[in-house]
């Protein structure tokens, strides 16, 4: 079943891979696919410099530095309350950090403007689904392209050529994203009535439809069954491979993250305690302590 699911995307991925390959050869770079991707030291898609954030007296983030290279899948893990979601909210402009700088591509911000996020090529999903429940799946995905709309409401009522073209293009892109995530069967249903795992996929489709440079996934695997987790992980990897999207994901399930990510950063009590490829992180003593609760009393969560 899962093999069937991935088979549909292979053609697209293969084409993409060939294109990247060609580009790489043209640039004279060595064609060592995976290591090249991880070691890509060009301009990072996302860079955080000394981000600090506190709520009242509670420190959520403390001098976080993070650099995410183009095309990598970067996981940020940590126990509950480690500051993962706060970090993502800083990047997506929902929180203003007390200190530090966020760099998205070539632009630097002390407070990322959330309203311009889509225009900056950043899309995100939310920890507890943030679908538009009263819209059909197709319309939800079309919403992902709203930032590209140029026609105002008068043009839309009059259905001018611009408005019509935008609508057609948006629907075509949405159909493609829906096919990519195997949502064809439910595309005319209201999003609110679908099973949780499917809704997660719809949210992924809505984020992907705009072909973002950077995709932020807030606990994409939380609350879904083990089978769905594997499937979602495949979809996330396919998204990167097919669209070249850089992905930052938050998770506290280490198991799934290790297989999926190129690099992993670990947060604990608002500080970054480790950062590296999965194998390094897995054997890092500080990480083990954080997860097994050796360093901090009362933190008995064990999620493997």
């Amino acid at each position, binding site marked *: 079943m899962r093999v069937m699911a991935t088979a549909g995307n292979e053609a697209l991925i293969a084409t993409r891979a060939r294109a990247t390959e060609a580009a790489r050869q043209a640039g004279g770079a060595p064609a060592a696919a995976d290591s090249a991707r991880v070691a890509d030291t060009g301009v990072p898609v996302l860079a955080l410099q000394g981000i600090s954030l506190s709520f009242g007296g509670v420190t959520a983030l403390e001098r976080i530095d993070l650099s995410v290279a183009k095309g990598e899948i970067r996981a940020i893990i940590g126990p509950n309350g480690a500051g993962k979601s706060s970090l993502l909210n800083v990047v997506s402009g929902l929180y203003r950090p007390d200190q530090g700088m966020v760099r998205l591509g070539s632009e630097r911000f002390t407070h990322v403007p959330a309203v311009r996020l889509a225009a900056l090529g950043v899309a995100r999903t939310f920890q507890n689904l943030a679908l*538009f429940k009263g819209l059909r799946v197709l319309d939800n995905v079309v919403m992902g392209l709203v930032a590209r709309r140029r026609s105002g409401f008068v043009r839309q009522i009059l259905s001018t050529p611009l408005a019509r073209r935008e609508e057609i293009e948006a629907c075509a892109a949405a159909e493609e994203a829906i096919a990519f995530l195997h949502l064809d069967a439910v595309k005319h249903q209201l999003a609110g009535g679908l099973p949780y795992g499917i809704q997660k996929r719809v949210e992924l489709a809505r984020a992907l439809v705009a072909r973002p440079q950077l995709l932020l996934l807030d606990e994409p695997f939380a609350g879904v069954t083990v089978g769905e987790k594997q499937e979602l992980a495949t979809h996330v990897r396919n998204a990167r491979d097919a669209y070249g999207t850089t992905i930052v994901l938050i998770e506290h399930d280490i198991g799934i993250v290790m297989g999926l990510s190129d690099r992993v950063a670990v947060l604990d009590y608002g500080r970054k305690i480790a950062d590296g490829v999965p194998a390094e992180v897995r054997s890092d003593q500080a990480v083990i302590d954080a997860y097994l609760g050796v360093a901090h009393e009362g933190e008995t969560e064990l999620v493997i």
Partner: protein
Amino acid sequence: MTTLARSAVSRGITPGRVGLVAMLIAAYGLVPFVGSDYVLDALLTPFLALALAALGLNLLTGYAGLVSLGSSAFLAVGAYAAFNCNVRLQELPLLASIVAAGLVAAAVGIVFGLPSLRLRGFYLAVSTLAAQFFVQWALTKFGWFSNNNPSGVIDAPALTLSGLTFSSAVGRYVVSLTVVVVATLLAARLLRSQVGRNFIALRDHEIAAKVIGVPLLRTKLLAFGVSSFLIGIAGVLWAFAYLRTVEPAGFNLDRSFEILFIIIIGGPASIRGAFLGAAFMVVLPLLLSRLGAALLGDVFDSGVLEMSQRIVIGALIAGILIAEPRGLISLVDRLADRIRHRLSRPLRNPTQP
């Protein structure tokens, strides 16, 4: 060829479209000839005006999720704006007055929609009460609005369109019907476009809508503007085609609540729901008075009627909010589905379209 394609492509849509066209044909071709002046004057014309007002509020509250208790104020703004256009710009044709009244109402609506940028839900609803009280006060206080009538009463002019007069019950019904049909088609079109999606996105998840790039400020004010535009036009119909003499006190909070109840009963976020709810609201007092007179005889006077009407509506709203939050229209839809299901099984052969 086209009919073939259509019947094949839109099997699901066809019954709705056919129903709509049939209703329009009946509304234009049958009702004006069959309906008595009483039916046209006391039932259909107020139904049309209320339905349009409810549709306007539904855009704002049902679709965009912004609750307003100021609908009656926008009705008043529309009515008084059209009156002033008519009195002060004599050469302005009626249609232009109606559109201008809608635009004035939209402008007022946008101003009173500004708090929505900060307030939400219950607090926003309360802030829209400001519109309700302010407009009613201004229309009574400043004689200019009513052309210096001491009690703010305005008398509607005769409805004339390019030389033709529509002052009879039939004429006023046809004018109302035409205005409501055009306005409804435009609203339906807007709701099907990206703007309509933005409204629902705003309602269902404001933060996700913001992050995805929905211009919140513009969308909220647009919702207030379009909603008030439609309600303003409904106000013109209410004053010019239905009552013909209105005073500011007629546009009180009760009316705002009535329009809100229409969309709760009929079905929020549904165009048909607004019409169904309005029909219900117009017919209910009649049914009650007939029923009351039959059961209780003379005891059932107009005072009792009004009280019983409130009790029934109150009970109904509580019941609907609990049992069927999507309103009467979803009951109707389910019933229609069941009937269609039952009919389509034996009648599968293609003779029946």
